[in-house]
């Protein structure tokens, strides 16, 4: 006869013990508060740099990763959440710098147009003199 402890079979106890161990494993990784905060700040910076206008896909990628990280936290998959939050930070950083580069390039384009306009205006004979 199989050993029993107050009506529970040894097999059932083993299952419970394994489930508890699995839960303990999930809880072992702490909630990655710092990684999430860093991702949120990086996204703020990207938005302030104009990423929504210049590199919307890159910004959307970062936002999706952050949302996935938050979902992972709700599912208690803390290690996955940390990795996703770190990737969101990287994506947001890329979005920020690409947006800055796009803005600077647009500024250069406008200045070049102004320069050509002034060259034409100031060229000898341009005003009929």
């Amino acid at each position, binding site marked *: 006869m199989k050993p029993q402890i107050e009506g529970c079979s040894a097999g059932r106890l083993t299952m419970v013990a394994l489930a508890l161990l699995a839960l303990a494993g999930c809880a072992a990784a702490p909630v990655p508060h710092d990684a999430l905060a860093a991702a949120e*700040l990086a996204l*703020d*910076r990207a938005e*302030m*740099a*104009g990423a929504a206008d210049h590199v919307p896909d890159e910004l959307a990628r970062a936002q999706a990763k952050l949302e996935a990280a938050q979902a992972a936290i709700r599912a208690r998959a803390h290690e996955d959440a940390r*990795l996703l939050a*770190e*990737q969101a930070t*990287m*994506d947001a*950083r*890329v979005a920020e*710098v*690409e947006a*800055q*580069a796009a*803005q*600077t*390039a647009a*500024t*250069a384009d*406008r*200045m*070049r147009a*102004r*320069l050509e306009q*002034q*060259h034409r*205006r*100031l060229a000898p004979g341009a005003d009929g003199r």
Partner: protein
Amino acid sequence: MIRPVAGLIGLVLAATVVGCGSVPAEHVSLDQAHAAVERARGAPRVRALAAAELDHAEVALERARTAAEARAPASHVAHLAYAASRQATLAEAHAADRVAQAEVDLLQRALDRLLARAPEDIRENRAAGEPPPAATFNVPLPDLTLDLSELSFEDADPGGETTTRLDQVADLLIGRPARKVSIAADFDLPDPVARTLMERRIETVRAAFLRRGIDPSRISVHADAAPEGRAVTSFERLAP
């Protein structure tokens, strides 16, 4: 005839060979990271203008390779490889930004020279009602707006999150000397105590930027809810 045990061993060996021959997922991401870093390294402007960022990408790639060789979990290797890819893209973006910034500087100098050579024409243009040359040519980047209602304060003291946010904005301003920041505040407060508190908060934010070396001329205040007349009045009272 082959004995069953020998057949089993043969099957296991075959499976092992097939397993070694297939490309693990982390190796795919490593290959992609390697290609991204190589592409960045192959661009002269990235090597010249974003050397530090390129170094970071190479270090990240090496870290991913080391993890793969040490047979770290596939997800860990893929994460490190992704970091290397992103660092490489970041290096390219920095280089593009610096190229554009250098072009802006060159164009600004060309415009300045043009203006210096043709002062009479410019004077004529001004007399004809055109805007002054500096305003015509100096195309600024959009200003940053900092909405006080979105920041948390304890009385007039900024909390940790607000301090971080202010540091971020200061970083952006330091990185872009032509850019300005506009502090948006609600001046339409009937309670004089609340109005005073709002003004103290504005001063706190201004002081935070000044401490970071931001020139006062780059910091402005405007009302986000009050009629324009009141905003100007408040700004004039707060301006240095």
